[in-house]
C-alpha cells in the first residue's frame, strides 16, 4: 500500500461524498436530522417526558404486626418520581393490565413480607432465624427500557426499606447503590442516543455499495486497474475514507444530541472509546458494502442488497431493538451493531469505564466482525465485483 495513492483515493471518495447530494444526505445530514428529530420528540429540549415507568403493585401482606413494612416499601415506591404507581387488589388483575401493556411492571409483595423484615431486625446476625420472603417482579418483555431500568430501581428501594440507608451494622453482603438509579434523570431520548451512533454508521453500507457499483459501471475501477494502484490501495483508501465519515457522523450525532439535552455520564476517555468503537464498526460497514457491490450488477441492485445487511443490523442492534419482540431480542447478539450500541450504552448511560471488561469485550467483538466482514468483502469483490 502506498500512502500517496491511498490518500489520493480517500480524498476522491470524501470529495465525492461531500459533493454528491444523495451521499452527503445519507452520510451526514440524515444522522443530523434523525438525532435532532428524536431529540425534539423524546428529549429534554423538546419538553419530552422524563423516563417514567408505570408499575403496578399488589400487597398481599395486609395485616399482622409487620404491616408497617409493606406500607413503608409502598411509600418509598410512591416517592420515586421515575415510577408511576398504581395498586391492584390481586395478582391476576395486575397481570391482566401488564399483559395488555397498561403497566410495564408488576410488584407483588408476599404475605410474609413484614414477618421476614421483623425476623431480620430481631436477629440480624443469624440468617438461620430469618423468615425468607420473595418480592415478585413481573416486567413487560416488549419494553427493553422497562426491563433494563425497573429492576435496579426496585432493588434499591427495597434495600432502603429493609436495611435502611444509614445502617452501619456490618452485613455479610454489602449492596452498593445500583447505578441505574440515575435513570431518574434520564429521558427516553437518552436511551436512544447510543443506538443512534450505530444507526448512522449502518447506512454507510449503502453508500459504499452504491459507490463501488457506480465506479464499476462507469469503468473507473477498470481504469484504476491499469495504474500501479493495488486492490489493497483501493480498499484501504475506502476504509480510511469511511472511517473519516464515521468520525464525522459521531461528531455530528454527539453534538446534536448534546444540544438536544443529552448529557452522557462519560468523560473524555469514554467519548474517545466511543469514537474508536464506531470507527472500527465503519470498517464492518465497508465490508458489507463490498459484499453488496460484489453481488449487485448496478447501483439500484446494490441499494437493495445493502438493505439485506442494513435491516438486521438496524432492527436488532440499535435503538430500534428496544421495541422488538422477546424472540428477536434473543438473537441480538448475532449482529455487530448490537455490541456497538451496548458498549456506548455502558459508556454513556451507565458511566462504565472505557477499560471495563464489558466495553472491551464489545470492542473485541466489533473488531472481529469488522476484520471478518472487510476480509470477506475484499475477497468477494476481488473475485466477482471488480469488473
Amino acid at each position, binding site marked *: 500500500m502506498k500512502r500517496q495513492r491511498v490518500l*489520493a483515493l480517500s480524498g476522491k471518495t470524501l470529495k*465525492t461524498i461531500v459533493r454528491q447530494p444523495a451521499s452527503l444526505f445519507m452520510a451526514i445530514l440524515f444522522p443530523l436530522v434523525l438525532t435532532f428529530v428524536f431529540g425534539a420528540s423524546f428529549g429534554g429540549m423538546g419538553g419530552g417526558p422524563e423516563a417514567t415507568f408505570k408499575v403496578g403493585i399488589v400487597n398481599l401482606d395486609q395485616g399482622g404486626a409487620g404491616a408497617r413494612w409493606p406500607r413503608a416499601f409502598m411509600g418509598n415506591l410512591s416517592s420515586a418520581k421515575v415510577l408511576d404507581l398504581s395498586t391492584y387488589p390481586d395478582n391476576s388483575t395486575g397481570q391482566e393490565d401488564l399483559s395488555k401493556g397498561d403497566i410495564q411492571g408488576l410488584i407483588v409483595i408476599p404475605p410474609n413480607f413484614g414477618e421476614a423484615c421483623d425476623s431480620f431486625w430481631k436477629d440480624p446476625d443469624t440468617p438461620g432465624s430469618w423468615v425468607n420472603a420473595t418480592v415478585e417482579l413481573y416486567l413487560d418483555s416488549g419494553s427493553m427500557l422497562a426491563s433494563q431500568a425497573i429492576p435496579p430501581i426496585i432493588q434499591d428501594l427495597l434495600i432502603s426499606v429493609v436495611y435502611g440507608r444509614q445502617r452501619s451494622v456490618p452485613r455479610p453482603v454489602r449492596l452498593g447503590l445500583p447505578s441505574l438509579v440515575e435513570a431518574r434523570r434520564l429521558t427516553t431520548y437518552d436511551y436512544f442516543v447510543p443506538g443512534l451512533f450505530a444507526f448512522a454508521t449502518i447506512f454507510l453500507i449503502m453508500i459504499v455499495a452504491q459507490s463501488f457499483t457506480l465506479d464499476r459501471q462507469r469503468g473507473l475501477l*477498470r481504469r484504476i486497474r*491499469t495504474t*500501479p*494502484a493495488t486492490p489493497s490501495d483501493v480498499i484501504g483508501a475506502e476504509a480510511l475514507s469511511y472511517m473519516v465519515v464515521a468520525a464525522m457522523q459521531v461528531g455530528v450525532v454527539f453534538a446534536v444530541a448534546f444540544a438536544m439535552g443529552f448529557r452522557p455520564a462519560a468523560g473524555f476517555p469514554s467519548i474517545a472509546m466511543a469514537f474508536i468503537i464506531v470507527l472500527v464498526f465503519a470498517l464492518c460497514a465497508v465490508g458489507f458494502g463490498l459484499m453488496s457491490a460484489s453481488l449487485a450488477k448496478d447501483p439500484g441492485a446494490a441499494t437493495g442488497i445493502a438493505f439485506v445487511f442494513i435491516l438486521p443490523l438496524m432492527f436488532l442492534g440499535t435503538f430500534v431493538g428496544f421495541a422488538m419482540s422477546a424472540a428477536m431480542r434473543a438473537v441480538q447478539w448475532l449482529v455487530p451493531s448490537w455490541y456497538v450500541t451496548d458498549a456506548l450504552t455502558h459508556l454513556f448511560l451507565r458511566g462504565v469505564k472505557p477499560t471495563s471488561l464489558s466495553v472491551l469485550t464489545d470492542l473485541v467483538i466489533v473488531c472481529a466482525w469488522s476484520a471478518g466482514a472487510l476480509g470477506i468483502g475484499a475477497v468477494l469483490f476481488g473475485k466477482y465485483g471488480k469488473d
Partner: protein
Amino acid sequence: MGGKHGKSPFPLVEPAISVHKLVKKFEDVTAVDGVDIDIAPGELFGLLGPNGAGKTTMLNILAGLLEPTSGSATVGGFDVRRNVANVRELIGVCPQDTAVYDYLTGRENVELFGDLHCIDKAKLRANAKVLLEKVGLSDDADRRVGTYSGGMRRRVNLAMALVHDPDILFLDEPTVAMDPQSRHAVWDFIRELRDRGKTLILTTHHMEEAEVLCDRVGVIDHGRLIALGSPDELKAKFGARDLEEVFIKITGRSIREGA
C-alpha cells in the same frame, strides 16, 4: 517504414510491445485469434478494424486487464501475465468509454491519476497544468467534470492517461464522438507524443485517422490480424486508394458494417 511480416520498423531495437500467437477466448467466442505483432519503441501503431473485431480486447490484454488464453505478450520487456505490476508502471491507458469522476474537477481527475502513479507532487501539478492546456481545458479545469460537454469529457479522459508521462500509451478510440476541431487538436497532440519518443497503440475505426497518424497499421477482423504494414504499403499492396478500400478488398465488406 514497416515490414511485410509484422516486424518492427526498427529491427535492431528490442520491441516496446511484442505479441506472439496471442489468443483470447470468451467461452465459445474467439476475440483474439493467434495475433503476432512487434511494435518498436517510438512507433505509432494503429489497430484498425470494425467494432467487435478484437481491438479493445487486445489492448485489455496488453494493459493486464485480461489474461490471454494462450500465446504471449510483453510490454516494455515485461510479460503481461507475470509482471503486470511492471507493465502498469510503464503504460498510460485512455479507455474508449470516458471513465472520469463527475464530482471531481478536470484538474482533480487528472491529478488523481498522477497520484496513483506516485509522481512527485510538484511535477504532478506542472504536468496537469500543461496537459490541461494542451487539451484545451485550462479555463474549465476547476469545474466539475459532470458539467462538461461530451467532447470535454473525452479530452479529460485523454489527459488522465498522460499525466504521469508514460513511455507506452494505449489510446482506445481517443477521438470518437469528437467534433472535427477537437479531433484535429488531439491528432496534433498524438503526433507530438510520437515526436517525443512515446510508443503508442491507437485503436480506431476511422480510416482517415489511421492514415494521417500511424507509422504502421494492423488490420484486425474477427480477432485475426489480416494485414500489417504502413498505410502506403497496404494501399500499394492491395491497389487501394485508402485503407477503407484495403479493408473492403480483404474482407469483402465495409469496416463500418461491424465484425
